[in-house]
């Protein structure tokens, strides 16, 4: 099991959390109903206290272990200093403006791309969004510190750039249409399917 982009991960998350939400609401509703019945309800299951505690610990810690193993950008992010990127884009943000190295940043499918972003004044965000407004990835951009995001793009697309951090009312205009284009994934898939890659 592996998630190749945010859409796959968030769809899984949507399903898992919705199921959980219905379970926890149902459990408390069941408690509420049976707490007030004159006839004492019997417990459906006996949950040992330490078993419940172990479940919580496993849930809290296991969640991170699970995502580390199935979401590729986690390990890539942690070890990004040891990875040589295929491409690097140096970007500056100043007075609520993105100063890009080129009008459109073109990326070939599967390339490891480093976005180095510098803020010269406020705290901003650097976020890439699909045309349907869903988020591809993001990071915070703090003035005076390193803001480097290493990302591997596995799907074709033309992405818009937005600030994902509030930087005052003027920051609401921080939008660059079609700032990033990823291409070649269709060809790559075809080659993979044809056994040539």
């Amino acid at each position, binding site marked *: 099991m592996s998630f190749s982009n945010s859409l796959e991960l968030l769809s899984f998350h949507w399903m898992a959390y919705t199921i959980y939400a219905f379970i926890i609401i149902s459990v408390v509703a069941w408690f*509420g109903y049976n707490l007030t019945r004159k006839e004492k309800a019997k417990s459906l299951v006996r949950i040992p206290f330490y078993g419940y505690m172990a479940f919580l610990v496993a849930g809290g*810690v296991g969640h991170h272990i699970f995502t580390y193993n199935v979401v590729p950008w986690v390990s890539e992010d942690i070890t990004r200093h040891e990875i040589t990127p295929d491409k690097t884009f140096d970007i500056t943000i100043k007075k609520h403006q993105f100063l890009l190295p080129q009008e459109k940043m073109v990326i070939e499918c599967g390339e490891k791309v480093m976005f180095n972003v510098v803020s010269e004044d406020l705290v901003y965000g650097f*976020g890439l969004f699909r045309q349907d407004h869903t988020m591809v990835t993001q990071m915070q951009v703090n003035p005076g510190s390193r803001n480097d995001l290493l990302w591997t793009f596995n799907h074709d697309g033309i992405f818009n750039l937005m600030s994902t951090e509030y930087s005052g009312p003027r920051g609401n205009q921080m939008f660059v249409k079609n700032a990033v284009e990823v291409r070649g994934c269709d060809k790559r898939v075809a080659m993979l399917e044809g056994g040539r890659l």
Partner: protein
Amino acid sequence: MTLMNGVNFKPESLNALQKVTLRAVVMSFLFYGLAAIEGMIMRVATVVPDIPPVHGEPEHFFSIMTVHPIVGLFGSTYQLVFAAFMFLVPFLTKKPLYSVKLANVVWLLITIGTAMAWIAAFIWQYAPMYTLYWPLPADTSQFKTIGGIVFILGVALIMFGTFGFIYNIYATIFARVGVHKNKTTKELLISGFGIDGMLNLFHKLTGRPPYTKEPALSLPVVAIFRGTVDTFLDAIVILGAGILVLIYLIADGVGSPLDMAAIDALLYKNWFWWGLDLVADGLVLIYVAGSWYLLATIITGQKLFMENVARAALMLELLVSWMVWSHHLLADQGQPEMMKLVSGEMVTAFELLTQGLALFITLVTLWKARPLKPTMELKYLLGGLVGFGLAVPAGIIQADMAMNRVLHNTQWIIGAHVHIAIIVGLYMTLYSVVYVLWPLVTNNAKLWSSKLSNAHFWLHLIGGIGMGAFMGMAGLDGMLRRHMYFEGEFQTYMILAGLFGSMILLAWVLFMVNIIMSVGLKGLLGIFLPARDSTASYGLEPEPELAKV
């Protein structure tokens, strides 16, 4: 006539402690209404940006967004929690409140401070958000200096009010009168930090008799004691940030601007989140756990299940709440990876354990005492459990390096986590406390309508969950939490969130109608008139000598 005189409420029969409690409660619910209206204005503006008073202008939209949490959290929640605890601590310790005069100063300072912050946003559109990320709050190219100064002074007043509350609570707990006449400060400290519970567990495991059979402080007081440590640290940090911003604003105002880069933005973020997170992960969770334990014992009339474990867990939460702030900085690439892993992910995950434990103990305590009457306090308590049952995992899920990369600053965190935690989890717990305390603080005034109470409960519960859920879904689809959209990008979600949000607003209207009809307009006014009876305790006769009214 009922509107003027209420059902059977007699404000002249209230003592000083009851009156000061009710004054803060009244202000709290007025601010709650203001926050609900602000929330609805923002909800509608995400669908129709041109609606007044936003008029399609980000300056107005973000001013509202800036004061919304100040009004909601400080003006309303802080007031309500402080009022309840300044009544409960004397009630539970069977001692008088250290100072009713100070309690009056607390609600006045918080009310005036909240009003000042609101005015700064309303008149001068000062809008740095509650996060105050450096150097935005001192950015005079976007905000007027006077607006910033009034806002910061307002927040400072709220923090001074908070210090007043803290002093009153600890002075009451440590007062060696009544049942604590022969207790030492050390004994009270050991009990306050939950250490006696931990020692009792250790003694049990090693086959020795318990460290203490009768702890000096009851469990809810331990939670208040423990949560107030975080309240203090949080107030210090917020006040410190306020002083820093004020220095820069004043320097700018007198024509000698200081170098913004002298303050490291990331270091500031760490410092600020360390303090601010104590509100959410220290203060709220601990106060709430204490409130659940209190409510469970009052509703059932029985001892709390696994009390020693609960005491020890409050001690554990002390360490957890101080070490989790990095989950707010998982998207900050300059933040050391080890801090992200340890503080941001692993220690944060322990909140699932501490809150899950509180939920377990509360439910088992209720279960063992069944059958129970379906009272309003029980319903609200269960609503509160549902709220945190939904909101805590929603937050833990995002406190993960994989999820945070695609969810940070989206509507997920503010909807599915924050709003459900506060509106459903925290407020339903607080409403339960209100229903428990109502007969005590009003001398058994009758509620005007139980039907309205029920309508309020269901509207608030369904509205809160529904609004948070649709905000969360919008977040999963990429909607940012602090962005004004003009092209109807997330319209369907926002219309649905708005519909559920209007249920919350309607619930508040029904609650206020019920309360006003119960106490009457004369009674409401009477709460603010001086008390004839200067007693600073409840249910104690004669009054011990410590009261200073």
